[in-house]
């Protein structure tokens, strides 16, 4: 456990004092720093919010944006929704898999990229879309696929 997590837990409980509402905000914040939520981290969060470890685990495992395995510095979500599929998202996914030498759901060995599918990202007018660390990249045709992997990113 990192010492400042205690402060973060207090802040989450101050903003969302009722029920277990502080849990998701705290998980988001800690994952933002750690990149994922290890079982040790989950146990720490449970301790900080006075919750049972299996309970926190059950919540973490429910949501697709909570990661229980280490992630790359850049998390690439390719939208595979219907409008994006009609616009060529499957080809985009295959291109990225080939380019990175990994399959959807995996992280490159150098820890740089994690490639994930996303369900509809609500940007269907800009199909196919992707997100890099939850920042939108619109109309990503095959030529633009390489650009997805480049450039500076926010964590």
């Amino acid at each position: 456990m990192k010492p400042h997590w205690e402060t973060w837990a207090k802040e989450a409980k101050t903003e969302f004092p009722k029920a277990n509402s502080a849990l998701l905000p705290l998980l988001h914040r800690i994952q933002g720093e750690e990149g994922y939520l290890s079982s040790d981290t989950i146990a720490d969060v449970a301790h900080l919010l006075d919750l049972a470890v299996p309970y926190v685990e059950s919540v973490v495992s429910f949501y697709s944006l909570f990661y229980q395995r280490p992630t790359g510095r850049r998390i690439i979500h390719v939208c595979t929704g219907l409008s994006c599929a009609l616009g060529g998202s499957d080809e985009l996914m295959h291109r990225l898999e080939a380019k990175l030498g990994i399959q959807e759901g995996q992280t490159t060995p150098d820890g740089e990229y994690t490639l994930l599918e996303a369900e509809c990202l609500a940007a269907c007018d800009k199909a196919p879309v992707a997100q890099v660390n939850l920042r939108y990249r619109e109309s990503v045709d095959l030529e633009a696929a390489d650009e997805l992997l480049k450039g500076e990113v926010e964590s």
Partner: protein
Amino acid sequence: MSQARRYLLRNQDIPDIDRIEVYEANQGYQALRQALGQNDPAALVDMVKASGLRGRGGAGFPTGVKWSFLPDDGRPRYLVVNSDEAEPGTFKDRELIEHNPHQLIEGMIISSYATRAREAYIYCRGEFRRGAEQLRRAVEEAYRRGYLGDNILDSGFSLDIKVYRGAGAYICGEESALLESLEGKRGNPRLKPPFPAVAGLYGMPTVVNNVETICNLPPLVLNGAAWYRTMGTEKSPGLKIMSVSGPVNRPGNYEIPLATPLRVLIDEYAGGMREQRGIKAVIPGGSSVPVLTADQLDTPLDYESVLAAGSMLGSGGCIVIDEHTCMVGVSARLLKFYREESCGKCTPCREGTYWMTDVLNRIEVGEGKPGDLELIADMADNIGGKVFCPLGDAALGVVVSAMQHFAEEFEVHIKEHACPMGARLYYDTVNY
């Protein structure tokens, strides 16, 4: 084509309206001043009832009626805004929160005043990083200008708004699952009744409204219920944002008077089909509703007319499907979505969406078996109406209607052991 004046999507006309000074310079927070000045919350509820405004998240329930279900028993009340937009084909709420967050916040303050809530939440989809940033910044600005906090504009009314981020789960757009998530739990839907109006967030009386619904409040207060009824029909008055995607020339969000014909939306607002392709089918209201066919393009886009045509206006997520697209592939892709997003609580939905996706995928790749279509119909029958929440039924809308309207296309796949449109298998992470 664009209409003379936009209300909900003013961000398309006014640059930087996401900044509070620009919003204020364009009548921003005037509706709030007017609403607080009249000092009559009940009159506001009546006005919303009189306007005929209906919930824009999908169900189309009359907003004013929903508000009046709150029991008057002295318990604290909450307003929760559903910004968990994730219905395939729908992208209106994201534009509203990213590009005009103050409109939503002003609408929330007015709605909270009308329903006498002292605390309001925005449940923002976890994937909407920019949306959450915009909302948080706008909420802070609103506090600084005295539109939020204690004694708003010296009216005696106080309100706090908090922005809460989801973490990736379509089901949290269902209002009771949303409340579970907001309470820090897995997003499993709750048994209803009790409805949120009686026992919602933290067990208290709660109104859950969609982003677009609440964004109607500022123009409604400024222009009145009678103005709202000059648009649309008797039962479906007012404005609706339609999100148009697929192979049209100008995909995007369009604000239409309700009852605008589907053909006008596609041809005039969205600029018609790319390369003059023919239209095969249209999913008019998000991925959960049955398809309309090319001979139904004159259907007026209001709740009753779309229902009479065999579909639903739903969220307004309008996906246009051209003549070159395989309906088996479309159905398979949507079933995969529901498979991924089923919370897993009910067996028919959890297992049924898996199985249906599998069967649809095998038909698409030419490995369908005689009897597969009957199997799909049987599975659909075992999901529809037999699960806890609307997700299971939502999964069936497109596939069941597509099998009905395009029966031959499904059958040919099985007989010829191939997709007649030459479609290869869509990407799927599970079995194929």
